[in-house]
């Protein structure tokens, strides 16, 4: 066990992955010598050589096209997109190519060795283009896996599992937590399962569901609610595609209530899918409408970021409203 922040845990996972799999490459804008603008790939070039950890030219569509090519050859390709806001030029290579590579070829070829890491979310005064949470776009794309860790220990285990999963995986890193989230992380190589939610706290009155940095917000809200005698079950979804409907449904059958929290805008955010699926699965168990506490249906703002965010206070109020329904 070592104390690590989220960045160090990610760096450590990458280092382990590259050490054990000499076929693993790590690349993106500024990830080489410099170690990435957030330093997630710090020292990897020094340790594993310039051929295995390197800068790319400034082209996200190129990075993902290149990565697909590498992966189709059998290479373990770990691509970084500097900010999730800049993943859109690569959208075609991700949703039309990576996601459909195996299917369209009848499994003659696949890009299962591909992992895309990218920092997402608010919290750094980033405004429209350094704050977005675009995970929902990818959840509408069969063939992809989507993973979001909430802390260093989770990040290491989930990233190692993502890199080794035989399908293309998008790994969204909550950049707000890069340095602020610190915790004990096992030193050894370990994996946490993809597609499995994590029950962070058990409770009986309402289920609170989030992923990434927002797990903190629902935990805080759960604390506030506890003072009012409300018992919240807190779940970190961890994988968004495929997602762990069973765990969520079981929890909702127990509590009778569900609140989903995400940073992305409300309309067609991933909360919509969860609500749609759970109202179907748990129809007779629901005591109040499934509620979504989310970012606003606006671009991500700068000055009024606090107002935009689905914070613990908004969550707490929504919990009370749900209980009072």
């Amino acid at each position, binding site marked *: 066990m070592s104390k690590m922040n989220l960045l160090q845990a990610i760096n450590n996972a990458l280092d382990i992955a590259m050490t054990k799999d000499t076929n693993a490459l790590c690349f993106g804008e500024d990830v080489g010598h410099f170690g990435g603008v957030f330093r997630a790939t710090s020292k990897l070039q020094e340790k594993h050589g310039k051929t295995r950890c390197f800068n790319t030219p400034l*082209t996200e*569509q*190129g990075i993902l096209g*290149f990565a697909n*090519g590498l992966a189709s050859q059998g290479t373990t390709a770990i691509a970084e997109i500097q900010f999730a806001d800049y993943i859109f030029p690569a959208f075609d*290579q991700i949703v039309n190519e990576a996601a459909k590579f195996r*299917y369209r070829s009848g499994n003659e070829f696949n890009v*299962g060795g591909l992992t895309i890491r990218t920092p997402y979310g608010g919290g750094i005064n980033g405004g429209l283009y350094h704050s977005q949470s675009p995970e929902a776009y990818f959840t509408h794309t069969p063939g992809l896996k989507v993973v979001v860790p909430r802390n260093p220990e989770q990040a290491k285990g989930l990233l190692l599992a993502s890199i080794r999963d*035989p399908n293309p995986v998008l790994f969204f890193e909550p950049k707000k937590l890069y340095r602020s989230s610190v915790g004990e992380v096992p030193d050894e190589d370990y994996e946490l399962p993809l597609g499995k939610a994590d029950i962070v706290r058990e409770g009986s009155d309402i289920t609170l569901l989030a992923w990434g940095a927002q797990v903190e917000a629902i935990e805080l809200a759960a604390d506030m609610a506890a003072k009012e005698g409300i018992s919240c079950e807190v779940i970190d979804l961890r994988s968004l595609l495929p997602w762990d409907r069973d765990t969520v449904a079981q929890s909702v059958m127990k509590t009778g209530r569900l609140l989903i929290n995400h940073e992305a805008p409300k309309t067609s955010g991933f909360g919509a899918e969860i609500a749609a699926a759970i109202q179907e699965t748990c129809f007779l168990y629901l005591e109040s409408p499934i509620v979504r506490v989310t970012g606003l249906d606006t671009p991500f703002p700068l000055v009024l970021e606090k107002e935009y965010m689905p914070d613990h206070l908004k969550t707490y109020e929504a919990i009370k409203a749900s209980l009072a329904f």
Partner: protein
Amino acid sequence: MSDIHKTDAPIVHRPIFADSTSLTLPTLRILQEDGHLYPDAELPDIDQTLALKIYDTFLFIRALDERMLASQRQGRISFYMTETGEEAADIGSTAALKDNDMIMAQYREQGALAFRGFTPDQFMNQIFSNEKDLGKGRQMPIHYGSHKLHYMTVSSPLATQLPQATGYAYALKAQSKPNCVICYFGEGAASEGDFHAALNMAGVYKVPVIFFCRNNGYAISTPSKEQFAGDGIAPRGVAYGLKTIRVDGNDVLAVLKATQEARKLAVEQHQPVLIEAMTYRLGAHSSSDDPSGYRNKEEEDVWRIKCPVTRMKRWLILQGWWDEEQDETLKQQHRQTVVDAMKKGEKVSPPALDDLFTDVYDSLPWNLEEQKAALEEHIRRYPESYKKSSWRFGHE
């Protein structure tokens, strides 16, 4: 570390604007229309066996394209694309490669695949989307692929294979494989952003890739002069720092020669190469297209007489390696092969319902398991309405 020397490059004190006339890239041609070599031409590495294999592939592809286009018109298949007029480009270049060099095609390069040994049956299985199709009946006709033959499955979105080729070639170099990738694309596809990323990255990483542009004058209805303003695609290679050559795409010996040299540069020196082959799409864009809406017959006729197949045949005859009688026999033979294979392929069953769900992931997640179960139940209820899949349920 940085490129700080640039302002100390040649200096001028008056503004001179360069433009497309500042760079002239000639076209390599070895074989004359009449089948004679240019006297001072430098020949590719070719013997009778290779020459006849190329020519055999030419005739097979002509037979395949003609027959399949006709089948489309008869309604036996939904879609087809011919490569008529461009056979020298893909077949001549693939003939310069090793069998385990990777081919990443656009869609009009069935000749390259045939050269590699894809069988008539395999073509038909794909075209008829039957259960023997390597692609499991999921893509439209002509989206071939074969792992064994190192031919990446064709993908409809244009130019996506270009940066993939750079990546694949990077892996070959990283693993010290003595191979390269050849990546085919049209002059239309070269307008996509992926083209830019691919060639630029290949230049930076110095990977063993040959970008092979079939400049056939059109992207569907759009003539190349509405596609770009410069002198074609080749000058871009110069700009990206690639080794670049333009060839007469209807001259199989020029294509072969250029690609043989390109392969050496790519594999031995890790110099990425751009080849621009000047050719012409003699047929329609696809079976859904009618070129009379955007170009005239005279233009087509100019190119019809530049037929790469005839040009090669003349050379073969002059070499004493071929004669008209053999030619007629072989054509007949290929026509028969194609018809036989077609009749066979047409009768093979469509893929099973399972194949609707497999290969989305390496294994089925819960949502697909559920959807599959629900669909099976539904089909059992309405077998008449889902005839492609329901007949199998009876036999279980």
